[in-house]
């Protein structure tokens, strides 16, 4: 599954895109992965699936065709 990183997240992961293999393809296990690999806390990230923010407590399934993006806090304007 391809995951893209933006803002501070990309700064921490030191990449803007990554191919990730999860046992359970859902939001929860993606968060766990990011926390374990990069020590990114839940409060520092937002998750967008196909350009829409999703709840971080959801067990939403992720498909390989989904565009999954990990975003830091918005700072426009």
């Amino acid at each position, binding site marked *: 599954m391809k995951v893209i990183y933006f803002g501070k997240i990309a700064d921490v992961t030191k990449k803007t895109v990554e191919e990730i293999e999860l046992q359970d393809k859902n939001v929860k296990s993606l968060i766990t992965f990011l926390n374990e690999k990069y020590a990114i806390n839940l409060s520092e990230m937002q998750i967008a699936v196909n350009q*829409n923010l999703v709840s971080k407590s959801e067990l939403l399934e992720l498909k390989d065709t989904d565009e999954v993006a990990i*975003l830091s806090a*918005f*700072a*426009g304007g």
Partner: protein
Amino acid sequence: MKKKKTVFIEGQITSSFIGNAIAKHQTKTQIGAHNIFLGQVRKDKIEDKTVKAIDFSCYQEMADQKLDIIREETFEKYDLTCMHIYHSLGKVEVGEVCLFVFVSAPHRPQVYEATEYIVNRVKEEVPIFGKEIFEDASYQWKTNV
């Protein structure tokens, strides 16, 4: 097919760009009131450091979608003749403009509130990221609170 709007501008939004945008609306003779919001990069002091510039980036596909929704819902909510939103990408120095929201209507009552509504939604919903670069070249990630 709807014409794709250019929203993102590389670097600062210049005063001549803003002047031109105003001039272009003089042929729309049903307009009686314009309201314009400009976001300018402030020379903030954070502890002992001073902001020199903000380096903006965005998640473009999502940003374009969110901006389309904001535009559509603003037109539904307020009686406007036209509206435009421009945001900088890349480096914008202190004193330079990075956000330009431009609302026009036949009469004035709703233009102020419509502008405020758009600015708030842009800040809250559009995936734009900003690195505050300090005078000593260190940086921190800006957050809209």
